[in-house]
């Protein structure tokens, strides 16, 4: 605190200067949510002068924040006297604040941590002031901390990716599939967009292993995994080794038509490998069967439900003679046989 023997006007001048110097944003709102203080830091980073905002209500300044977390926190402070914390992680940059003129132009917002606190009205203020609740909105630039954590997280992802790759084929393993499926399923549900799954099984693989040996079997799986991975077009698509000779593709934002097209591409890619298989029940070379499911996840759909559907479609493909694609939910015979099932 400032030494007590200073005259009040000196104290006031000093406090004003301190509020101007301090390296955090300070907004003071009165009981009607009108701005009565907007410090220099706010002027610098909002590109609004204090003259332009004083007397305006919070919602006049930030109409898009109506009933959002920051606005609720302000109401909580003015109505209930409760303090609130608004974290950067859960609320991405709520206020239009910018580090500098350059980011103001590009619209790239500063990362923010916001505290909303009721203000104790000092007893030496006039009574009409004491009865009015006020609150302080304090905004801190947390860009440095956010970037540091982003780097750490990327490093952790990199490390984890090493434990999420399948030891034999190098493509993502079952664990990676489970995690990816979980997050894409939730994303699809949130954004009401279609999610497709393709379940893939190598035809007569047991006969291949039994006759050519496990070494050749492993080589075969490595080539198949690489070919399936090549067939994928987008970074958000994922192909994983699901089990022994089973693979699973996760295709976000892909409709049934797109998934069927990709499944057929995969099937022909494996044919093109022309891996000899004299003991196959289907052809003279290695082939695959594929089951496709496309869904916009609704409230009552679950991941096991979707995987189960892909599994049933795959089973249908096996029963329909192998080396073909079956889309879940479509009649397999005879209507769509031509479009969904093709041999050779």
């Amino acid at each position: 605190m400032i030494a007590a023997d200073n005259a009040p006007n000196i104290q006031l001048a000093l406090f004003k200067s301190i509020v101007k110097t301090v390296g955090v944003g300070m907004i003071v709102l009165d009981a009607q949510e009108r701005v009565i203080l907007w410090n220099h830091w706010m002027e610098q980073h909002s590109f609004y002068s204090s003259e332009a905002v004083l007397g305006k209500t919070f919602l006049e300044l930030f109409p898009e924040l109506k009933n959002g977390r920051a606005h609720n926190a302000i109401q909580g402070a003015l109505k209930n006297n409760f303090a609130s914390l608004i974290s950067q992680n859960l609320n991405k940059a709520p206020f239009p604040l910018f580090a500098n003129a350059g980011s103001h132009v590009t619209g790239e917002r500063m990362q923010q941590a916001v505290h909303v606190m009721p203000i104790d009205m000092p007893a030496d203020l006039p009574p009409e002031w004491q009865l009015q609740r006020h609150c302080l909105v304090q905004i801190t630039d947390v860009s440095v901390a956010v970037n540091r954590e982003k780097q750490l997280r990327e490093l952790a992802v990199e490390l984890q990716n090493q434990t999420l790759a399948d030891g034999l084929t190098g493509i993502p393993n079952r664990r990676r599939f489970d995690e990816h499926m979980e997050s894409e399923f939730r994303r699809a549900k949130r954004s009401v967009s279609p999610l497709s799954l393709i379940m893939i099984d190598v035809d007569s693989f047991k006969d291949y292993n039994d006759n050519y040996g496990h070494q050749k079997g492993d080589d075969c799986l490595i080539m198949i995994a690489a070919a399936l991975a090549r067939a994928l077009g987008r970074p958000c698509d994922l192909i994983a080794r699901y089990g022994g000779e089973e693979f699973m593709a996760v295709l976000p934002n892909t409709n049934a038509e797109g998934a069927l097209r990709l499944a057929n591409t995969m099937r022909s890619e494996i044919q093109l490998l022309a891996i000899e298989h004299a003991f196959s029940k289907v052809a003279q070379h290695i082939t695959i069967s594929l089951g496709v499911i496309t869904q916009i996840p609704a409230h009552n759909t679950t991941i096991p439900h979707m995987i189960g559907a892909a599994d049933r479609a795959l089973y249908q493909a096996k029963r329909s003679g192998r080396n073909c694609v079956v889309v879940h939910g479509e009649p397999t015979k005879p209507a769509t046989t031509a479009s969904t099932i093709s041999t050779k």
Partner: protein
Amino acid sequence: MFQLTELQHDALIELFNQGVGQAAAAMSQIVREEVTMSVPLITFQTRTEVAQALGGSQSRRICAVTQIYEGAFNTEAMLMFPEDKSLKIVQLMLGQTVTMEELSDMEQEAMSEIGNIILNSCMSTLANISKKELHGSLPVYRIGTSDQILGSVGTQWDGLVLTLKIDFNIEKHEIDGYVAFLLDMNALHDLQAYLEQYLSGIVS
């Protein structure tokens, strides 16, 4: 020993359910997914009893977000989760796939905000029925054994802990947490008086 009547007890559960309902709505808005919370039961226990119930036989670590409320009645309020559960909640709320061993600084802040939302919502329903001023502090994140968090070793205290079990449900994941209010005898009697006032208001 302090005790609420059955009617007061039911009223308090109902008020807390209103409170966590509001908190769940606020959290749903943040994560844009359905979050539900309910309070199936409340208990009054001593600090030592709560510490034992939370800590189990071994001294597992507890994450806590604490806030001080003063005015209508004075209490230290805390939201508590076993450490692994708090990691799970933050992971779900932030939609992250990579889990770390511990919450990072920014994640601790996110956890503090979750606590802040839940505690303020619970307390606002109590502030409403008291019709008195109640001042709430900013949340503080702490981690430690349940004894450390509750401060239950070596100090004399005549109060009780009001514990709410919270069923927290986010995207099909169910997570149990606890909210505890440390209430001394004065605060307990204040709380009981407000409940009585609230109930007589309903009846008349």
